[in-house]
């Protein structure tokens, strides 16, 4: 039985490691990140994730091997008595100082990315000066308000603002800032493919920025419990080229100005 239990406690971390390796190496399983990050900042977040992952994997293997070894030794002990020891001062010092240095390094090493992501003074200037849209979360949808083409987003809604629901369009290859609000309870703006997440807090306007570097339609979901329909807040982020983005805004404007008489495209012409 002793052999069985020793093997059991050695075997289970091995299974865990094999399973993790398979998950990270076989993307077709979908048990890892949903693709490489669409933003550069997201890639840096992923790199920090991998840095932590490598360190903790080393610690995990180290501690589990040590544990397996002492277990095997202790279960096969032929000595009449255990080793009488109350501990070792030098070992305590070593295993307090070494991890604390590693941990402190890890904490300080994260600061840059956090500052870039969240501290407004570090936001790219062009994004900070002209937010592209205001996203208002409500039970259970995302309402999006764009300024009219050529205008700047104002704090209060303007008569020529453009509206859409559950489909946020942004241009690629330039940093964009979004004003995030909540109309009712707390929500969280989560773009898994961009590694962006920010809670929408009632009563607050929270700016977020990102720079999509790839065209595509990405999932936008809610990551903070907001009621029974929390799971239903399914929306999308459409990242597209500048020209397509402008065309989209134009079409939105045309549809919004449609008075029921002229054909929508004619209205669009008139506006130009």
């Amino acid at each position: 039985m002793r052999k069985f239990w020793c093997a059991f406690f050695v075997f289970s971390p091995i299974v865990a490691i094999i399973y993790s390796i398979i998950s990270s190496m076989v993307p077709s399983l979908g048990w890892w990140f949903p693709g490489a990050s669409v933003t550069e900042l997201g890639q840096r977040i992923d790199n920090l994730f991998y840095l932590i992952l490598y360190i903790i994997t080393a610690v995990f293997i180290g501690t589990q091997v040590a544990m397996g070894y002492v277990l095997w030794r202790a279960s096969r002990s032929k000595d009449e008595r255990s080793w009488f020891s109350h501990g070792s001062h030098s070992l305590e010092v070593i295993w307090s100082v070494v991890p604390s240095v590693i941990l402190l390094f890890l904490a300080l090493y994260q600061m840059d990315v956090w500052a870039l992501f969240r501290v407004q003074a570090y936001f790219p200037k062009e994004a900070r000066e002209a937010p592209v849209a205001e996203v208002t979360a409500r039970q259970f949808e995302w309402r999006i308000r764009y300024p009219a083409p050529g205008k700047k987003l104002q704090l209060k809604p303007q008569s020529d603002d453009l509206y859409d629901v559950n489909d946020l369009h942004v241009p690629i290859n330039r940093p964009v800032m979004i004003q995030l609000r909540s109309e009712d309870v707390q929500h969280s703006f989560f773009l898994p493919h961009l590694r962006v997440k920010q809670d929408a807090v009632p009563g607050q306007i929270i700016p977020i920025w990102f720079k999509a570097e790839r065209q595509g339609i990405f999932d936008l979901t809610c990551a903070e419990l907001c009621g029974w329909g929390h799971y239903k807040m399914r929306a999308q982020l459409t990242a597209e080229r500048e020209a397509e983005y402008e065309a989209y805004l134009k079409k939105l404007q045309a549809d919004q100005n449609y008075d029921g008489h002229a054909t929508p495209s004619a209205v669009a012409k008139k506006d130009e």
Partner: protein
Amino acid sequence: MSAVGVAHEHGHEQEHAHGAHGHHQQSFMQKYVFSTDHKMIGMQFLFTTLLMLMVGGALALGVRWQLAFPWTNMPIFGPLFANAGGQISPEFYTMLFTMHATVMIFLVVIPVLAGAFGNFLIPLMIGADDMAFPVLNMLSYWFMIPAIACFGMSFVYGGAAAGWTSYPLLSELRVAAPSSGPAQTYWLLGVTFVGVSSMMGSVNYMTTIINMRAPGMTLFRMPLTIWGMFITAILQAFALPVLTAAGFMLLFDRFAFGGWLEGIHTVFFTPAGIVVNNAAPTVGGGQPLLWQHLFWFYSHPAVYIMLLPAMGMTSDMLACMCRKPIFGYKPMVYSMSAIAGLGFIVWGHHMFTSGMNPALGMTFMVSTVMIALPSAVKVFNWIGTIWGGRLQFNTVTLHCIAFVSMFIVGGLSGIFMAAVPVDIYIHDTYIIVAHFHYVVFGTTMFGVFGAIQFWFPKMFGRKMNESVGKWHFLLTYIGFNGAFFPMHMLGIAGFPRRYADPYIHPYLEHLLPLNQFITISAMIMGFAQFLLLGNFVISIFNGQKAGRNPWNANGLEWSAPSPPGHGNFDIPPVCYRGPYEYSNPNRADQDFWMQTDPNRGPKKPAEVVAHGHT
């Protein structure tokens, strides 16, 4: 030492009193129901929490059923509960995970550690004949009953459905969660009652440990279990008032009185102009983030309240099972204290994405990352304890090893959450769920299962069945890891928590089979608990009889009869040495040396001077 002197006198007084007590028969009510005996109260807590463990587990299986087989009829419970023809509706699902967490945290993990084992072990291990305040102790159990009743009422009204964190405004404005109405109010009252119960326990434990230790039981001769309980009691005393206050603030925010009471309707957490469900805009000037700060100021220390006693108990069990002194007793004590101290300044790591000042994110990150240090020291010391020991693989040992092994996983995965930029992505995904289940179930509950086996002979005078215990361990361990390890991968894939149907999102569709695997593992784990319950109940009546000290352990509790009578010790204990003198070479005839053993060993003092006073 004055404390010891006082304890001594007090002990004598009590002993006389008990001499007189012993003769008159206690009624059934006095003995088993409204008992002031710490052992009976501990067992009352233990029975209650084991029952609640099954309730909480059933709720979890409901959650798992929906995630594995969405919108299909739930077996067994389907006809009982659900309002949609046996299906789990999204409202019901929200209630399920809210109440699962509530029951498990407030009615299982916290009371099983502090309530059951704290009560049972503290007086026995420090050599007191009861708690300092026996009536207060009884009340601390009986305040759990209204708490359970309130949570029960919450079920009747459809169940609180704002998550166990109950963030306003969802938990505050009735229109925001129409199904939760009075349920949320009852939930808050229930939490308040649990708080009162914990606070009574906390005051009692601190007083008892400070004032009622047996002669010779200095602070650094206390078993680590007692250190764990002591630090936990301090944590509760400092953290709980904040939650209670926050709970009342939320209650007053929720109340809409009429007449002269109208002024009581407060707006602590309500900002102005919030329109929920097309209701009239709110009037206010409050701040919802305030609740998060207050809530986590309690609930993060609460995580350590749910962990430290189990760490202490495992240290005691592991030393006994390895027949070896604990490796680094004082570092163990200091690291528990460090965890408790740092535990008060890390609450903000639950709020990295909440929109609080980003500078706070940085400070909280540093403190949170640093709390991994004392945890690491503890793990190294546990491994050091096994190192060079003579191990017997009984059920207790298995649970202890699982405890350390699972704590390594849970502790390491916590570093991802502590690092703010990484937390941006993984916050509120399943990697968080994996992490805290590894800590709260994998670590604490394995510790508790081990502790049940270990102290069962002291509670009932009989041993639990070993082979059933091993099967229970094996199935729980396999089921647990099968259920929770893959959740790390779900989290990395961006799978959010608390989704009634995640598969409507294109990037999550392919994760259904993995979730089905998790659910099957969770079922194995859940049903394995019937083995524990069966073993527990049957062993009370049919277990192998155990003497005073079936494990050849050192603690004071093992010098009392099994089970100890009213007043605990037939001989007032005196403590002569630390609790971990296993395999001491100065004791040639046996490999343990009880704390109460007056035999001071051979007169060659080298070893004694070196180790006797640790």
